[in-house]
């Protein structure tokens, strides 16, 4: 799946996007976050406070309990500030 990051989530993780293949037991956004957070300090720091993380799957806002699929584009970012 394609993961994309914005704002300080991007800065902490250190990349704008990446292709990853999580193990089969990773079924939800929440599973994915826990798996990512175990991959290194940058990820752990980005996901340290989930109250300030927003998620989109295929460009649509979702919650942490959303199911993920292998061909999804999943985005992680802080609360948005448009306008």
């Amino acid at each position: 799946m394609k993961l994309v990051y914005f704002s300080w989530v991007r800065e902490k993780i250190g990349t704008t996007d990446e292709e990853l293949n999580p193990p089969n037991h990773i079924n939800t956004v929440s599973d994915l976050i826990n798996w990512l957070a175990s991959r290194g300090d940058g990820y752990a720091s980005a996901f340290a406070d989930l109250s300030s993380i927003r998620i989109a799957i295929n460009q649509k806002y979702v919650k942490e309990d959303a199911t993920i699929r292998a061909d999804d584009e999943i985005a992680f970012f802080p609360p948005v500030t448009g306008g």
Partner: protein
Amino acid sequence: MAVRIQLENFQIGAELNAITNGRHNIGGLCSFVGLVREMAGNENITSMTLEHYPSMTEKAIMEIEAEAQNRWPLEATLIIHRYGKLKPGDQIVLVAAASSHREAAFKACNFLIDWLKTKAPFWKLEESFKGSRWVNPRGTDDEAAARWD
């Protein structure tokens, strides 16, 4: 009905004229322009860089526009949102709503900017001589957006 996400500046007068030109069923046009403010708290900022999610931004804003269309009898709407590095005084966003009567135009314009604040995937990096920091959404923005729920 139009949504544009762009680096370039926009000409307010020309954009508003284009909405109403030849549209004699429009009786009221309400617009809002958001600008880069020089003060962030007690600090003078030197620039503000807007990052966005290119493949999502237009789609998300078109959904907000469609919601406004559902709620009020609108003849036209226009949303222009810039990204990239801007300076104090620069224009960031133009929102306009036109209707046969003013009430729908006022309400839709207000609604559009309130929902843009909390639902359009933009992030703002403020830079000053002391360094840079990402702007946190204000609680008052959430309250303003929630009154339309």
